[in-house]
């Protein structure tokens, strides 16, 4: 009995000690991305970018790199599996920080569990504004859709000289709806008019009726703020119908699958905004593209670059925080200023979003080429 009474304070002390010991000088990252399903290109690119960044860090700062470990988990490109995957890395793997995901709906599905566990989440590529509004534990290292939407609207009005737009969005995607909304506001403010609003459901493959309706309104540009799998088919079907219109979209287009599904003739001459242009002349970008291509035998997409930068922002914050303590990590992440990445220089603002430039790419037969770079603040000047 005596022994038992003794164990209580001992265990308590021990627990305290181990709790202190837990706030150690190591960082365990749970990388949750869609490695299968509709956005698997993004999951694969994100994981590749992250792994390459950590290997590059090994060469530059071996002491820091040795303190960071990563476990990977598949969120299968849907919010339900994303919520399960994040619980697995938090409860089973006991990670300190969740890194992911890409699709905003899936990242949103993960936020609550991270906050509940008292940990920190960093998404390298989810652009819907709601993502970081979940709580002060959620950060992102990319721009948000209102910026992307206003970049596209300004580009349509001022560079392409188009005043009549139509929108075809994925009504089950937070990303798609958010981008469409931001575009509409900015496009109207810039003197444009939105003549048609149509939608589809991801997973559907026939969009001819929507396109028939849109064509009847004679828009000059058609915003399709969806993901490549549907956008590719929409381009192809518009071409089959003989519907000639300039298509605009966001970073959801950025995948080689787009060109394969649409076909060279249907894809060319359209524009999308994204995080990174592989043909940017910046030597930093060129070195990244060369190393990535040599390692993975394919060119990096925007998600490769975003994830490469994102995990290095995390590593940088961890170094400054000096421990895996969530409060210290949050403070260090918030203090990120002028981080020079391959996808531009970024700072984290008070809303825990990154302020950084966007690029606009023009689609050609089998790839997209750099068209314009828009710095933060530049897009909002006109309105």
């Amino acid at each position, binding site marked *: 009995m005596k022994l038992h009474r003794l164990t209580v304070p001992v265990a308590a002390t021990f627990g305290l000690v181990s709790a202190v010991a837990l706030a150690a000088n190591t960082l365990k990252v749970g990388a949750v991305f869609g*490695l*299968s*399903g*509709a956005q*698997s*290109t993004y999951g694969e690119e994100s994981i590749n970018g992250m792994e390459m960044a950590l290997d590059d860090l090994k060469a530059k700062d071996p002491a820091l790199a040795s303190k960071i470990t990563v476990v990977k988990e598949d969120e299968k490109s849907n919010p339900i599996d994303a919520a399960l995957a994040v619980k697995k890395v938090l409860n089973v793997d006991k990670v300190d920080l969740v890194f992911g995901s890409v699709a905003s709906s899936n990242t949103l599905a993960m936020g609550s569990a991270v906050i509940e566990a008292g940990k920190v989440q960093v998404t390298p590529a989810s652009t819907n504004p709601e993502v970081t509004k979940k709580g002060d534990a959620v950060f992102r290292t990319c721009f948000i859709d209102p910026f992307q939407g206003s970049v596209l609207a300004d580009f349509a009005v001022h560079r392409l000289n188009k005043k009549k737009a139509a929108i075809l969005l994925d*009504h089950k995607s937070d990303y798609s709806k958010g981008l469409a909304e931001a575009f509409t506001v900015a496009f109207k403010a810039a003197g444009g008019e939105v003549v048609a609003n*149509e*939608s*589809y*459901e991801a*997973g*559907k*493959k*026939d969009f*001819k*009726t*929507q396109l*028939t*309706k849109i064509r*009847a309104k004679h828009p000059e540009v058609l915003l399709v703020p969806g993901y490549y*799998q549907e956008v*590719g*088919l929409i381009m192809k079907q518009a071409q*089959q*119908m*003989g519907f000639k219109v300039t298509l605009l979209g966001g970073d959801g287009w950025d995948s080689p*699958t787009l060109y*394969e*599904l649409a*076909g060279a003739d249907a894809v060319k001459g359209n524009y999308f905004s994204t995080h990174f242009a592989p043909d940017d002349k910046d030597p930093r970008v060129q070195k990244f593209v060369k190393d990535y291509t040599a390692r993975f035998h394919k060119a990096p997409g925007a998600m490769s670059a975003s994830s490469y930068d994102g995990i290095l922002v995390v590593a940088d914050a961890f170094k400054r925080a000096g421990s895996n303590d969530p409060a210290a990590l949050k403070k260090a992440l918030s203090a990120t200023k002028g981080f020079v990445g391959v996808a531009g220089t970024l700072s984290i603002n008070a809303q825990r979003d990154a302020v950084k430039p966007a690029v606009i790419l023009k689609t050609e037969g089998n790839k997209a080429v750099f068209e314009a770079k828009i710095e933060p603040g530049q897009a909002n000047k006109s309105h």
Partner: protein
Amino acid sequence: MSEFLQFLINGLAVGSMYALIALGYTMVYGIIQLINFAHGEFMMMGAFVGAFTLNRLQGTPLAVALVISMLAAGLLAVLVELVAYRPLRRQPKIFVLTAAIAVSVLLQNLGRIVFGSSAVSFPAQFPQGSIGLESLGVWVEYSQLFVLGLSLVLMAALWLIVHKTKIGAAMRATSQDIDAARLMGINTNFVISFTFFIGASLAGAVGVFYGMQYSVDPLMGVQPGLAAFVAAVLGGIGSLPGAMIGGLLIGIIENLVAGYLSSTYQGAITFVLLILVLSIKPTGLLGRMAPVKV
């Protein structure tokens, strides 16, 4: 008017594919009272076999790829029935229904592992373009015509098999009373396998149609599978003409709703129809009330 015709054509083209899938649902239900939820996956497998044949074996004619896909999907269904459904046939219906859902998930994941998760397309082997009826303001694509035409041919072939052949008579007998049919000397196990084969080969053909017009991915069977299931219920499950009419109706209604109401409701309307049918006429348009065997 021209818009209406265009929506109608779009609906007919999609609806004919739903109809072909719905036939498989209704045939299997007719013979063993099973809603085979893995049916959409037979279509996906057929599509991947078609994509594989056309992409890897350059120069394969579309017709050959179509036949290979139909055979592959059909044989897969025979295997699935043998391994997953037959051992459960004497168990309560819910067992085999659960097995069907399991097979569906299994095949989706198998497709992902074997073929990869990103969407692929077929080579543009089919003449691209459309016939423009300028006076009406309507465009009909060659591929839409092809799909619609071939769907009708396949439906006619199915009707001939069921009504004019010996195996068709055996199928009808088995669907009326499986025990009596067996007592009359019909090899009912073979008839059931054959039914699965025919139903799934039609789904495999749709897989090729989908790949030809759209794209192929491991989850492609889910949406058309559900739409076709509703089509089969709408037409009266167990009834072949019901499945055809149901499929065409679902395709047309989906596109008219998207065209005249809002495209946001395009997906939902299918299930609104399902609820309406079940509450107003549970036997569907052409279904009969089957006496429950005790």
